[in-house]
């Protein structure tokens, strides 16, 4: 392994670790290619802290030399001269935990800091930890993943008349960010699809992502049409959409941009479905924030949650200023609109923004949770994430390269998936009996998506994952979460399935800060966890009694 070239100091004794919810402890620090390992050496304690380097978002170091250090840097190796010096490294993690290490010896401190900086953001996917992680109770031969368009199609017998499974993308040549198989109208052949793909950004032609059993309506998603400034048309695209609403009077297009943004997109080759060319489709514009704005919102909110001024006005104004809760509100209300079109209004809907890899997935996922009881079980929810995020080509690696603490210049980062988890948490809070999974699952996913032992969230698309052999050489997080012990922990003890749609309230009073995530490392959250534990125990106790 080449990691060793980045590790000048692998072991330091006498390091003090300061960590939320624990008293400071003294012990040995080790750094490996993928981990920081701290072993407590206090008497009677054997605490070990293992931190994935990938989880580290930013570090700050400060060194002080008690003896002075003239000429120190020119003559490395004279470590005895630095015996009076020490340094402190503050580690800010992507799961929002902040740790501090007091390291004796300035050189050692700088070495450790350097290793962390380098190793925490290695670019090469195949060198990442999931390729080395080999837990005893999982085998690489285990099935990978829970769901795919193929399995969705074969389960949904109702689809088979009007819809077909196309493998036009089997070698990812039509749309690099789509999976090999997609569901499309039966009457549209693969040649037509190829032409439609050329008319949609990134080749993301409209595909079916949800079939509403109650009325046969569907949710389609795609990217924007490439109409451009001179209003180009594509007969095949119009044909495909016509085939979607075949037999119905109209369909809706939910465009996740404002109509002004959609107009502007024409200047850069994008566009929207005009009324004249798509006469049976009604466009609804709902502006959703994405990209940088969302990332900045997260950064502001996390900063606000760390504010120690203890000032209510300041907090409320920072909370408002971050806009995070506004984005939660918009996402849930747009998803509500989508579900309303399908469930109440009885029409099919096409969702897209520009690229179709972010906000489109966000609202189609939420709408499915609102309408479809099958998505609300633990297995169902994970399968939904697999279809709507992993296979649908949400670029996880780009979006989640850094989180709220990073100082590096932001590029493609955007916490869209975190926003999804927050919205799901709001649903879970409003309907505590309707979802089969617990808050712990959402928290676990929020951690795993940024840094993981598992290969699930690696890469940006199915194609990329195949190229590096993720499915052969790493373990699948979703499978691991469904092992019996884990499954218990991530299930909602109060779950009572309901066939009804769960319409969330988007009134600001009904939406709350997700304290479990944003204030995760505080004592107060432990009290809430105790309460959850208590609920679990009560229900288990009751179950035992009822069976006896």
């Amino acid at each position, binding site marked *: 392994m080449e990691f060793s070239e980045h590790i000048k100091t692998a072991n330091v004794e006498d390091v003090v670790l300061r960590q939320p919810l624990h008293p400071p402890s003294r012990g040995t620090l080790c750094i490996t290619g993928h981990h920081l390992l701290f072993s407590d050496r206090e008497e009677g304690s054997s605490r070990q802290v293992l931190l994935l380097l990938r989880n580290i978002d930013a570090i700050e170091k400060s060194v002080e030399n008690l003896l002075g250090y003239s000429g120190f840097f020119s003559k490395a190796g004279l470590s005895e001269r630095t015996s009076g010096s020490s340094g402190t490294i503050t580690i800010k993690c992507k799961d929002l935990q902040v740790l501090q290490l007091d390291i004796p010896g300035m050189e050692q401190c700088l070495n450790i800091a350097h290793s962390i900086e380098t190793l925490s953001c290695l670019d090469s996917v195949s060198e990442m930890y999931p390729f080395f992680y080999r837990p005893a109770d999982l085998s690489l031969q285990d099935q990978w993943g829970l769901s795919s368009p193929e399995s969705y199609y074969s389960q949904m017998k109702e689809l088979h008349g009007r819809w077909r499974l196309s493998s036009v993308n089997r070698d990812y040549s039509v749309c690099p960010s789509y999976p090999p198989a997609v569901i499309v109208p039966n009457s549209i052949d693969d040649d037509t699809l190829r032409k439609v793909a050329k008319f949609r950004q990134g080749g993301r032609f409209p595909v079916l992502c949800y079939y509403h059993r109650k009325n046969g309506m569907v949710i389609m998603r795609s990217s924007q049409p490439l109409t451009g400034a001179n209003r180009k048309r594509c007969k095949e695209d119009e044909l495909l959409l016509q085939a979607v609403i075949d037999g119905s009077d109209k369909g809706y297009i939910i465009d996740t941009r404002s109509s002004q943004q959609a107009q502007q997109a024409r200047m850069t080759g994008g566009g929207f479905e005009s009324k004249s060319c798509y006469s049976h489709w009604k466009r609804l514009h709902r502006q959703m924030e994405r990209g940088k704005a969302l990332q900045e919102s997260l950064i502001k909110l996390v900063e606000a949650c760390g504010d120690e001024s203890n000032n209510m006005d300041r907090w409320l104004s920072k909370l408002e200023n971050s806009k995070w809760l506004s984005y939660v509100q918009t996402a849930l209300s747009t998803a509500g609109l989508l579900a309303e079109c399908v469930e109440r209004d009885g029409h099919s809907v096409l969702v897209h923004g520009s690229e179709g890899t972010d906000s489109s997935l966000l609202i189609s996922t939420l709408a499915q949770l609102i309408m479809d009881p099958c998505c609300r079980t633990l297995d169902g929810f994970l399968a939904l994430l697999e279809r709507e995020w992993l296979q649908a080509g949400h670029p996880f690696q780009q979006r989640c390269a850094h989180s709220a603490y990073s100082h590096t210049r932001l590029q493609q980062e955007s916490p869209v998936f975190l926003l999804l988890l927050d919205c799901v948490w709001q649903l879970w809070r409003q309907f505590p009996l309707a979802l089969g999974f617990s808050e712990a699952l959402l928290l676990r996913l929020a951690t795993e998506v940024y840094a993981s032992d598992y290969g699930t969230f690696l890469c940006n698309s199915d194609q990329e994952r195949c190229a590096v052999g993720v499915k052969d050489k790493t373990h699948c997080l979703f499978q691991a979460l469904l092992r019996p012990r884990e499954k218990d922990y991530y299930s909602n003890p109060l779950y009572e399935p309901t066939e009804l749609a769960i319409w969330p309230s988007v009134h*600001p009073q009904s*939406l709350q800060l997700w304290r479990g995530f944003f204030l995760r490392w505080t004592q107060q959250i432990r009290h809430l966890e105790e309460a959850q534990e208590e609920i679990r125990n009560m229900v288990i106790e009751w179950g035992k009694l009822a069976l006896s």
Partner: protein
Amino acid sequence: SKNLNTPELQEKASVGTLYLSATHTIFVENNPETRKETWVLHSMVSSVDRPPSTPSGSQLVLRCKDFRVYQILVPQERDCVDVHASLVRLSRPEKYSELYCLSFNPSVNKEEREASWSFIDLMADYKRMGVPNNLWVSTTVNNEYRVCDTYPSELFVPKSASTGVIVGSSRFRSRGRFPALSYFHQDTLAAVCRCSQPLSGFSGRCQEDELMLQAVMKSNPGSDYIYVVDTRPKLNAMANRAAGKGYENEDHYTNIKLQFIGIENIHVMRSSQQKIIDVGEMRAPSMSDFLWGLENSGWLKHIKAVLDAGVFIARAVADEGVSVLVHCSDGWDRTAQACSVASILLDPFYRTLRGFMVLIERDWVSFGHKFSHRYAHLDGDPKEVSPVIDQFLECVWQLSEQFPCAFEFNERFLITLHTYIYSCQYGSFMGNCQKERRDLRLRERSHSVWPQLWKDRSDYTNPLYQAEQSQSQGVLKPNTSPFYFKMWKGLYNHVEKSVPPRQSPADYLSAVREESQQLEEELTNHQEVAPGGTAHHHFGQEFCDLDIF
């Protein structure tokens, strides 16, 4: 009776008949299937407005003290004017004799009614604390309310304080409210005492008062000083000196540490609450409007200040073992808030249903709190109205959000209590002090609220509470960082009551707990248990959120 169209502000409009009785406004829907009735107590009405008429009729808007709003559309303007005039009169009784509690007659006999008044026994609670003892003793100095007419007749004072010292001190304190024991913490022997501000002006002093504080200090063997907590902002306290009042001069009182907390006065709180009510009534605000409104109201900032006061006192008593003397101006608003929050934090007993009743009875009812004025029981000076106890109840709710397993009672209990405090249905919260209640002969003429609440306790129990659980024991140490405060939706939001009922885990868990207990009993009785058939529950529709989700 008239046919009226009464769209309740938040619900769908419905057509029906409006009746006015001596005590209630009653609206009965015409819909023959439901014939739904809405009863509104006159004493719960805080204002009746008559906005300009519309083509379809004249309007009446009833705003209630529980923050509900009813809009009534009356076809004939004449009728509307009449109803308005009647309601204005009926909702503003001028004399105690007109209050609902004197006509409210639940089906209990005389003996039960009399017994209802001894349901809460404050002396038993002092005994539970270990008082009287060799540090704190009972005093008869206020028998017949001779020294302080707003204090109770039975009080505990430092053993070393002579009658002369007490009386002298009371003369130097606003309205004679001298330092007396509120809570004694057995673990550290430190105490929470309360009083009103000293009449010091810029330079006045009083030897007896100085001795009295000295005596409070001596009654705690573990410490050689006491904290004097002035719950007002320092500027307000200083301004009071110009009126011959003020705060303790640390040069005159030896061994005290003065601490200002900065809870604003009743006028600031009244207008702040109005703003948060307005926020609660916004129909479809954007998130920014809502958060801005929340900030602008200042309400959560005030709630935090009250909680901070309680936390300061509890820390001094439990962690430092130092006694605390708490006052504000007259010692019956902010002082009551701070002392009762401190007790909740210090002693798990007050976090039980019965203990909470004891606490309200002691720090609010018995020690004198102007219920009649603050909660507008009688038509009077609107400047005397202020949501003082609302804030205390909200502090408890905010605490229960941080410690979901620590309280035996639930949100519904707090809201019900809030309603009873305003509604005048029971005699418990009538008048402003013990003497007034005695003079009104309330024990003979009305009922106490506590036995009723106790009887319905299954509605008010938090299913997550377990006495042995760690959160339920010891001193509560809440985090009062701003992040942990939320708007109390259950109290202030009536806009969303119309939304289909949300799922309530609390009700679900109560049912689970109840069923588990039954099953357990059945098991111990070796009876046969029907297999399986217990998996599905149908719960009441009323919303009681266990807001840990």
